[in-house]
């Protein structure tokens, strides 16, 4: 009996507590009238009682808080502070945890950060949740700037209803970065057009890989270089899972590259992967007996086939920055060519938090980063080759040669690649479905499953992850 009383007392007190918590929530919402209802900001974001004029820079403290994924924006912020009397605070958060952090902060009605960003695959959820301010409304009127930015970037920043919510300062189409000297030796040419033909489709890539291996090189450092070219088709169309022919061809290529020992098996973004940009890396095979602990022996073994050089890296336009820091001695020997499909990856899309109380400053900063030609010029110089999304700047720099790439005109190349992109293929499902697909590929290449079983397993996994999708098995 007594226990029962205590239980009920405890329950009542917990319930009370939850009520108090709810009550509090309401109170704070009431108190912040110019704040959106945090639970359904997307429906109210466009309400006129919440125009930026009301709430913009209500704090007036000359501050701006940015949460970003890459350190780039930190540099933009520093630059911005030079010419503006605003104190910008930049927080860099690793991508794996970024959505969680933004989600928790904005759901709770935090008024900071003012500037939030997202990579393309994060944006759909962010837009649905109403985290990003509608930039088409006054005073932003972003639609007026539409023709100043590369098309696909503009589209990525739009939500399902075509409302502009984020803009990126960079374009990120992908290409293959290859070694001109190796190309000359093996294929007798180093011309990007010609080399592009060696990558024109998946079966050709396999042939290219074999040719390179015969000459003692490896086509790629890692298994992941093809990720950005895994098929420029949508995984989900009208709520239906779609596996295109390209996906299968890609699968076959990955399996063959592995089975025939054609890459150097470094993990992408690992130290050996970076090392391979600047010269030989050890490939330790069954018959190599080199003592890698002994530096002199290691060096003399370089000719013995115990080490190899890597022909190409598949990277987006921002790979220029990665290469910049890592090519070392091989600088000048690189070229960039197109891949088997158009592809792109990443890109920091900047938007304004719908909860921000410093929206005017935030918009000014956003314009500064994306729509200002001076900034674009500065960034191109500062980053030594990142590719901006502002068309006028790209036009202006189209004849700039990049020394790492033997003076190749990269900006016009990237613009061309970007123009070929079909952005509509990106969906929120991509990460999970892509993981399931690469699980299937791993299963096949390690002979754990037959191709049929692996693909059946893929369908099962997608079905379990997204019951709402229609799945028609073949």
């Amino acid at each position, binding site marked *: 009996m007594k226990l029962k009383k205590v239980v009920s007392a405890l329950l009542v007190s*917990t319930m009370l*507590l939850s009520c108090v918590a709810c009550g509090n929530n309401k109170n704070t919402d009431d108190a912040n009238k110019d704040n959106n209802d945090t639970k359904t900001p997307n429906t109210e974001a466009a309400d006129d009682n919440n125009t930026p004029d009301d709430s913009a820079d209500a704090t007036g403290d000359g501050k701006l808080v940015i949460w970003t994924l890459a350190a780039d924006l930190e540099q933009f912020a520093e630059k911005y502070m030079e010419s503006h009397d605003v104190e910008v605070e930049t927080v860099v958060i690793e991508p*794996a945890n970024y959505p*969680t952090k933004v989600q928790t902060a904005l759901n709770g009605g935090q008024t900071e950060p003012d500037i939030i960003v997202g990579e393309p695959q994060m944006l759909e959820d962010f837009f649905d949740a109403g985290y990003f301010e509608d930039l088409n409304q006054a005073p932003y009127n972003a639609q007026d700037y539409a023709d100043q930015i590369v098309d696909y970037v503009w589209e990525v920043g739009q939500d399902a209803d075509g409302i502009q919510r984020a803009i990126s300062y960079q374009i990120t189409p992908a290409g293959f970065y290859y070694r001109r000297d190796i190309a000359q030796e093996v294929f007798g040419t180093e011309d990007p057009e010609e080399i592009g033909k060696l990558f024109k489709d998946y079966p050709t890539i396999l042939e290219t890989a074999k040719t390179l291996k015969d000459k003692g090189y490896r086509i790629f450092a890692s298994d992941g270089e093809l990720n950005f070219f895994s098929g420029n088709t949508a995984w989900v169309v009208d709520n239906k899972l779609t596996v295109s022919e390209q996906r299968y061809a890609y699968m076959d290529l990955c399996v063959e590259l592995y089975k025939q020992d054609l890459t150097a098996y470094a993990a992408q973004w690992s130290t*050996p992967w970076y090392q391979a940009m600047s010269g030989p*890396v050890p490939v330790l095979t*069954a018959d190599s007996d080199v003592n*890698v602990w002994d530096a002199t022996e290691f060096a003399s073994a370089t000719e013995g086939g115990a080490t190899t050089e890597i022909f190409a890296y598949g990277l987006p336009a921002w790979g220029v920055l990665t290469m910049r820091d890592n090519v070392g001695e091989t600088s000048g020997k690189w070229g960039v060519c197109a891949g088997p499909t158009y592809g792109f990856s990443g890109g920091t899309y900047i938007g304004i938090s719908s909860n921000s109380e410093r929206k005017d400053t935030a918009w000014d900063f956003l314009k500064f980063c994306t729509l200002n030609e001076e900034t674009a010029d500065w960034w191109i110089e500062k980053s030594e080759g990142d590719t901006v999304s502002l068309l006028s700047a790209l036009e202006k720099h189209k004849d700039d040669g990049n020394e790492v790439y033997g003076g190749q005109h990269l900006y016009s190349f990237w613009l061309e690649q970007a123009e070929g992109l079909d952005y509509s293929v990106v969906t929120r499902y991509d990460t999970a479905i892509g993981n399931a697909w690469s*699980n299937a590929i791993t299963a096949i290449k390690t002979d754990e499953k037959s191709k049929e079983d692996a693909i059946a397993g893929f369908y*099962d996994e997608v079905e379990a992850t997204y019951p709402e999708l229609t799945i028609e098995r073949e």
Partner: protein
Amino acid sequence: MAKNQVMTKSKQRNRNNVAYLFVLPFVVVFLIFSVYPVLRTLYLSFTSYKGFGDPVWLGLDNYKRVLTDKFFWRAFGNTLKIWGVNIIVQLGLAFLLTILFSDIKYKMRGLPIFRAIYYLPNLIACTSVAFLFKTLLDWKYGSVNQMLISAGITSTQINWLGDVNIAPYVISIVGAWMWFGNSFIVLMAGVQGISTDYFEAAAIDGCGRWTRFFKITIPLLKPILLYTCITSLIGGLQLFDLPYLMNGPQGGTAGQPNGVLQTAVMYLYKFGFETRQTGYASAIAYTLFIIILIVSIIQFKWLGKED
């Protein structure tokens, strides 16, 4: 006399009321920071909550989905497998060490220093351990393979974290490396609790080492062994950090290669934070909790019988 007794009783009651004051801070903080979040998750597990917007009530749908989700059960199976091998290695090693240090014939010295060193791996944050082993065990470039090949132990590199038949056990063994020191200390304490008189008496009676071991050590250690096994199962079912950080190539919840490293809590995390199906993730969390609860109840029943 009677009056006096009444006095003591009321005094006692007064005294016991002080206890409320003692536990008050604990209870208040506990209700706010532990109970409330957990109850909120319980509520969410009955909804279609996506991390934003209003939760829509679904009743038991999420739970039905968990029970029929073969990938959840695969993840659960993975967890048991990783845990199983882990506990065998971990306890086995701890057990051997315990026998060695309690052996009355050899009288090994240096217990405190060995014990302290063996415990060291427990101290490093999981992130550092994972980073370290991932680098050391890298397929083509890791130091472990370099060492094995130079020593002629193997002629090809072993794909420690990329082979579906090896990777789960690698995680088990890294786990065992991290935690065996802890088990050793627990078991050692148990043995030190057994009076050496038993052993000496047995030795005088002419019992050999193995007889002593099976007739004295094992029976007396049984409750501790059971306790360690089962508490480790509770911990093991929550296994997350190590496989999350060590599965490749970039970590995450996919549990590569081919999902064999995806544990139950990683599966939960996939839905809670990666695909934003918070409601479903909450239902997974509670399903796991119920399983752990059942295991614990069995544990308490079992141990209760022992006494």
